[in-house]
Each structure stands twice: as C-alpha cells, then as structure tokens.
C-alpha cells in the first residue's frame, strides 16, 4: 500500500505545475542534408556551451514544413525558434503567432542584410539567416556551336532570346532556354524577375491591387513565353538535369546548381552571369529569397530564443553555415567569407546580383496571390488565354483578397 502511495505521490509531483527549469529550447529547421545537418548540430552545441541552454532540434521538410509549423503554432504550442521561408513571415506575423522582435534586436539591425521580408506593418518579426538569389547559367559550349565568340555574354533580353533561338536550332535534343512549367512555388520566381526588370511593381501604393495587367506585366510575360517557345518547359529539377547534361543553353537557378555542376564531370563549359536587362546599360533584377528565423509568441523562454537568433547570425557562425550550404552571399556584412579561388568569379557574380535582387511583397495572403499568379501564367503558357487576358485575370482575382486585408 505504501508503495502505491509513493507511486501516486511521484505522479502528482510530476504533474504539478510550477516554474519550469532547464526547459530545452526547441528549434525547428529545414536542413536535413548530410552536408549541412552536422553544422546545424555544431551551431546548437556551441550555443549550449555559451549559454547553458539546451537546444532540441526538430527537422522539417519543404514538402510539408509549412503545414507542420502552422498546425503547431495554431495549437498555442510549437517550437521556440523556427526557420521560415522569406515569403511566409508576413502570413505568420499577421496571425499574431510570432514574437515582435522590434525592440530586442539592437545591434543586429546594422549587421545583417535584407531585413525587408522580416518586417510586417513596421514591426520586425524575423531575422534574416540565409540569402538566396538566382542567376543566369549559360552553356559556353552550346554558344560556341551556335557561332558565338568565346567571350559572348548575354546582357539584354534580346541577346538572350536570340542566343536561345540559335541554340534551340542546333538539334532535336538541344534546347535554348530551360523554362519553368506550371510548378507550384517556382514559376512565379521565374516570371517576377522579368516583371521587375521591366519596371513592374507587384502592388499599387496602398496594396489593394496587383499591377500585372500593365505594360511591364505584358512585356515580361510575352518575353517569358518567347523564351519558353525557344526551349524546354519542365520542372526546375529536370531543367537543371538537362542543363547538367549539356542539353540546355540557359537556365535560371541558384547556388545549389553550382554545387551540383561542380560535383559532376561535365563534358561542356559553362559560366554564370547576372540577369539580363531590358535595354543595354540597364539593370536585370533577380529574385531574392531566403531563410528567416522567428520566435514563437508562446515561447516559454523568449530571452534564450532571441539569444539563439543572435548566436546563429554571428559572423563566425554565419561563415560556417554559408560555407556548408554552398551559398556565396553571407547574411552578416561582417562575415569574413572567402571561397575557393576557382569559384571566386562565380561567387562575385552572385554577390553582385544580390544587390539587384528583390523579394516578394510582404503580404499575409502571398501564398494565395502566388497561386493566382502562377495559374494566370500557366493559362498563357498553354495558350488558353492571351498574355493580356491572363494578366488581367490575375489582377481581377487578387483584388478581393487584397481588399479584404486592406480593410483590416
């Protein structure tokens, strides 16, 4: 009987509420690949050593991470620190699930780059952790076969289109441009750079209307359709496979493709350049994405959570992470970052492009807007609508969503 009481007492003690001590800080992140995961563990360990706070890592995947985070946060629980894609921050911030970090970031604000996606309604909810931009990858060998001089680099839309045309004519299984099909979350990232380069702005001044039905929208979509007609329309991963196989003249991709190409033994030469501009001497804008770190509003340990954000973005940790991910664009401006001399030129191109890159507008309904945008481009790609009809449809269908948020 006494043994029974002892057990009961232990259970009651275990269930009793009270101040929690030594509660581990839970950090959910997306880096599960063997090149980066050990660095994530190393960063967590060094934080544990420095602060005596235990860190419990949780792994997410891009296929269902968004849903997992939303479900966890909607229950009022969830992890303390979460990695978010740049275009998700506004959505979670608007729902009141993220901790307002505006007054807690102090010196960090001057050290890190590209804060814009982390700011919603003038309050800071996310800390930039990793920057990503996209470049134009060009197959030098195919350009040679198409009769271009050895130093040719396409710098304008018309040069890119003409070179794509000439490469596309080289043979049955050779394609000029690797164009994205209607692949969710990717197609809009390929269209928007052309739209921005043509001077387009996604929203009007008070964000109640998208502005794709404008001259810039039409010019950029028509150009994208022309490029698609002179190449192959496929998923991003397959376009990259075709490029790595030496069958595509041009693709738009990120640092990860440099890594893939360098690991393979390529039977051709390639180079990387900045996005072409509409006119000679202009600026070609690229898409900037990134990874951001946020703190859960319900975190039991917000002080330690903010300390973890600071720790992860310190120059030496930024260098470790940037090197492991194969990125060329450190997030901390004070990070002493050098790359392999063989890749220095490529790295310099990425670093130059990041300055001429833009991220998606910070809007809580971006996921829905993005879906409508991709659906419209798809209609034009499959000749179901003219480009103007498709763009007008996008503006029409996004209007009620934007007006709903504008009224709030």
């Amino acid at each position: 009987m006494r043994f029974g009481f002892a057990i009961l007492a232990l259970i009651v003690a275990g269930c009793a509420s009270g101040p929690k001590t030594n509660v581990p800080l839970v950090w959910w992140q997306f880096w599960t690949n063997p090149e980066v995961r050990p660095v994530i563990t190393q960063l967590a360990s060094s934080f544990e050593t420095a602060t005596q706070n235990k860190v419990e890592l949780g792994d997410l995947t891009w296929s269902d991470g968004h849903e997992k985070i939303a479900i966890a946060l909607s229950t009022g629980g969830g992890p303390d620190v979460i990695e978010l894609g740049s275009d998700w921050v506004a959505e979670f911030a608007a729902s009141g699930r993220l901790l307002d970090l505006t007054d807690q970031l102090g010196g960090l604000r001057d050290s890190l780059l590209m804060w814009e996606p982390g700011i919603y309604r003038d309050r800071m909810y996310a800390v930039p952790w990793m920057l990503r931009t996209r470049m134009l990858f060009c197959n030098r060998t195919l350009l040679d076969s198409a009769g271009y001089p050895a130093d040719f680099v396409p710098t304008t839309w018309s040069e890119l289109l003409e070179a794509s045309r000439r490469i596309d004519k080289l043979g049955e299984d050779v394609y000029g441009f690797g164009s994205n099909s209607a692949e969710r979350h990717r197609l809009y990232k390929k269209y928007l750079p052309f739209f921005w380069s043509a001077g387009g702005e996604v929203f009007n001044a008070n964000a109640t209307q998208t502005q794709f039905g404008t001259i810039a929208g039409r010019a950029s979509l028509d150009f994208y359709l022309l490029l698609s007609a002179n190449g192959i329309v496929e998923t991003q991963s397959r376009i990259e496979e075709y490029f790595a196989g030496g069958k595509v003249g041009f693709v738009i991709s990120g640092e990860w493709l440099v890594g893939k190409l360098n690991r393979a033994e390529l039977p051709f030469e390639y180079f990387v350049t900045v996005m072409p501009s509409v006119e000679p001497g202009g600026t070609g804008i690229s898409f900037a994405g990134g990874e951001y770190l946020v703190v859960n509003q319900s975190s039991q340990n917000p002080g330690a959570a903010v300390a973890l954000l600071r720790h992860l973005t310190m120059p030496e940790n930024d260098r470790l992470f940037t090197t492991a991910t194969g990125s060329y664009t450190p997030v901390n401006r004070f990070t002493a970052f050098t790359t392999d001399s063989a890749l220095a030129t490529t790295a310099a191109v990425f670093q130059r492009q990041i300055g001429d890159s833009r991220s998606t507008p910070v809007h809580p309904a971006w996921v829905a807007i993005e879906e409508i945008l991709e659906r419209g481009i798809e209609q034009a790609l499959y000749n179901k609508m003219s480009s103007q009809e498709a763009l007008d449809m996008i503006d029409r269908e996004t209007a009620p969503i934007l007006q709903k948020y504008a009224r709030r």
Partner: protein
Amino acid sequence: MRGVSTGRFRGSDLLMLSPWLATLLLFWLFPVAASLVLSFTDYQLLSGQGGFVGFDNFTALFSDQTFVRAVINTLLFTVGTLPFTIAFAILLAIFVNRNLPFKTFFQSVYFFPSIVSLVVVALIYSTLYARGGYIQMILGMLGIPYPAEGFLFSEATALPAIMAMDVWMSTGYYMLLFVAALQSIPQELYDAAALEGAGAWHRLKAITLPHLKPMLLFVLVLNTIKSFQIFVEVFVMTKGGPLNSTMTIVYFVYEEGLHKFNIGYGAAAANILFILIAIIAWMEMKLVQERQA
C-alpha cells in the same frame, strides 16, 4: 449461468470496451463532427478566428471552377480506373489460379506493385512519363504519336497517365482477393459442368462469375472509395496541374485546408466528398444486390 449472455449490459463490459470506445470517439466521431461544424464557419487555422457562415462555403464551392473541375476529374478517374482494375484483376486471378508452372512466381510478380510505396511508384512513373522518357521512346519506335512536352505536362494526357499508373498498381492487390474467392468455389461444380460438356466460356459465365459476386461487390465499393480519395499520385506527380487537369477533390481539400488554411472551405469540400462516396457506394451495393436477386 457463466458464459451465457443475459442480454444485460454491465459496467465491466463498458470498462472492457472503453479503449475501443475512446478511440472511436476521439479519432473517428470527433473529427467527423468537427469537420461538419467547421464546414459552416470561415475558421482560419492560424489566427483561430472565424464565425458561423451558414451554407456560404457550400454555395461558394459550387461556383468555384477549380472545385467543379476537381469533382469532374475525380469522377473521371473513378470511372476510368474501376472497370479496368476489376477486369484485369479477375483475368489475372483466373490465370494464376490455374495449375500452371511458376504459379506462385506469377502471383508474386502481379502482386508486387501493390506493396511498393506509392510515392516511390509515382516518382518512377514521373520519370517514365517525362519528355525523352522510356514511354516516349517506345511509342516513338512503334510510330504512335505522343505529347512532346511529356505526358504529365499535357492537359490531355496527365490524368490518363495517372489513371494508367493506378490501374497497374492496384490490379495485383484485387487479383489476390479474387484468387481467394475463386479458391472457395467447389471444384465439384466445374467437374459437373465438364461432364455436361460446358465449355470454358460457359463455365466462366455460369459458375465463376456468379460465385465472385460477393467479392466483386466488396472490391467495387473498396476501389470506388480508394479512387475518390486519390491524393498521393497527384501530390507527387502534378500538384493538380497542368491547368487543373489533375485536380481532384482530396487535393483540393489539402490545398484549401492545409496550404491556404481556409479550414471551413476545405471542410465543406471534404463533406461533399463524404456525401458523394456514400451515395455512390450505396448505388453500387443496390445495383449488385438487385442483379443477384
């Protein structure tokens, strides 16, 4: 009397049943009820906000072109896969049920696709269906026209391509069920029919098919429900595209509920799916039972 039911329900019975009852309530009845309630609200998962909107979600769904397309595609998928799956399964079952050499080998070969992970199969088929993939190569050699952009990027072929994969994958499983049904048919019936001089076709019509009817009904209902719930194939291979040509009801529910977090809207679509499955399964049962009568 011990061991004999008195017809009375005792407290101890309830205690014994409680694990099952708890599971039933928590994981079956509660989600169904919650889904029904949510379908009449505009509940937003992230903010936790939302109020009663009556039948608004349901009326909005019927004017939503994407949802209408999802319903049509789901029906097409079911109608396009069900007869082939069942016909092939019966034919294969009859084939492997005969005393042929390597009988077990053939059974295993035909059953194998149904034990492979659906995601793995979908990825393999995505490669086969791609531009320059093996299927295009074979069709090219045979002089049969094919979509140059690949089967999954053509509005005309994306859904049929998924349907063909599904038939390939499901047939083996139903074949095994039909083999079990075939083995329960008394051999004496075939012996008697042979004495009467009945041919193979007559034996199939008069003995085999009538005896397969209970299993046929089971497979029909099971496969209908499975077809209406098609999701993984679409998620892995096409994400509902191109131009919503592979958008199905469950994928629509996922997109609305778990991607855009329009929980009420997604729940309404899920309830329509439930009603559709219930009506069609009931019709199938009635049809087969009437034929039996």
